[in-house]
């Protein structure tokens, strides 16, 4: 594999982009990779949150219109990502983390497509509430995969596999702690608010099937 990588690294495109005295060139490709990510992952995550019940009054059908923006973001990422790969093929193609990142992104793209086909291709006249478990499972998977993709992407900046592992595990632990604490705080805040209002109709039911958020 090494000769192929060395050849890739010696191509005109690779050497030009890598050795350019213009600092803006490499950094701008990197910036486009981030901008594409912001719109692709951002809109995808916002839609996933809506599927999970955030902003329930947002009608689902018109959200379909945002999908092209998402895919344009993905296109930006694919092109800039390919250029970044050509600049340092040996670094990336010998890194386990890079393959993890690719697999995770492929999974996220697949889930976004699946969610689109299930929920947005032929939108329902009235949105079911709550949405089918299959839709919600896809939304959770999308959010988890995006978290993993961002982390794996950030980790490509490190050369040391040991540091990468440590950081990956720490990110997982910190994320889980934040989610649990956030969930508890939101629940606590909600019950304090309903208690202060003294309105018995808005009390969260105790059998776990919460309809009031």
């Amino acid at each position, binding site marked *: 594999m090494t000769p192929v990588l060395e050849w890739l690294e010696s191509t005109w495109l690779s050497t030009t982009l890598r050795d350019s005295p213009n*600092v*803006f060139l490499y*950094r*701008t490709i*990197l*910036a486009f990779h*981030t*901008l594409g*990510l*912001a*719109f692709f*992952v*951002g*809109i*995808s*995550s*916002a839609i996933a*949150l*809506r599927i999970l019940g*955030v*902003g*329930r*009054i*947002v*009608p689902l*059908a*018109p*959200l*379909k*219109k*945002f999908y092209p*923006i998402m895919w344009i973001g993905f296109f930006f990422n694919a092109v800039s990502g390919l250029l970044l790969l050509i600049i340092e093929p040996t670094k990336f193609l010998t890194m386990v983390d890079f393959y993890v990142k690719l697999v995770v992104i492929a999974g996220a793209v697949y889930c976004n497509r699946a969610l689109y086909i299930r929920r947005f291709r032929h939108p329902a006249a009235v949105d079911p509430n709550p949405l089918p478990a299959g839709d919600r499972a896809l939304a959770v998977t999308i959010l988890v995969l*995006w*978290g993993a993709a*961002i*982390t794996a*992407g*950030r*980790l490509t*900046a*490190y050369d040391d596999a040991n*540091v990468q592992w*440590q*950081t990956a*595990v*720490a*990110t997982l632990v*910190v994320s889980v702690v934040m989610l649990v604490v956030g969930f508890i705080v939101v629940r606590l805040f909600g019950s304090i608010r309903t208690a202060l209002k003294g309105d018995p109709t808005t009390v969260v039911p105790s059998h776990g099937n919460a309809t009031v958020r």
Partner: protein
Amino acid sequence: MEPFLRYWLRWPSVEQLIYQHLWVWGVCQSLHFVGMVLLIGTVGMLDLRMLGMAKQLPAAALQKLIPWGVFGFALCLATGFIFVTGIYANINVHPYVVLTSDVFLQLKLFFLLLAGLNLLAFYVTGMAKAVDHMGPGDDAPRLAKVFAGASLSFWIAVMYFARLIPSGKFQP
């Protein structure tokens, strides 16, 4: 002013955290990106709706997603605070030096300020209220569209210049 800032910008506790655990910086970077994603996903969507995309969406409903954008911004702010106060532990340069000499960081912060002022103007001019009353199919007032376009451009500028920060020159 300089001695004051030089004293307050370096936080030994944050530096110790970064020195002692190799993962702190990377975790904060990931969270910084997650915050960015939440912010752009929610605020960007509302901006695009104001500019005329997905007109069947009632804008008021879309504003229900904004708290997640605010949470995202808070994540960015908290992790950004760690980057500034703990940068000495990462690159051995005083944050005062970075803040006063890295033009890209300065540009990022400048556009961040503009995005903030833009948001303030959006509320002060009553446009936020007007947008709140936008039902399905309604067109946003022209001024609201200006704010929406400015918001998108400013956030894109913030992200662009942020990516250039490591290429900035530090002159001690």
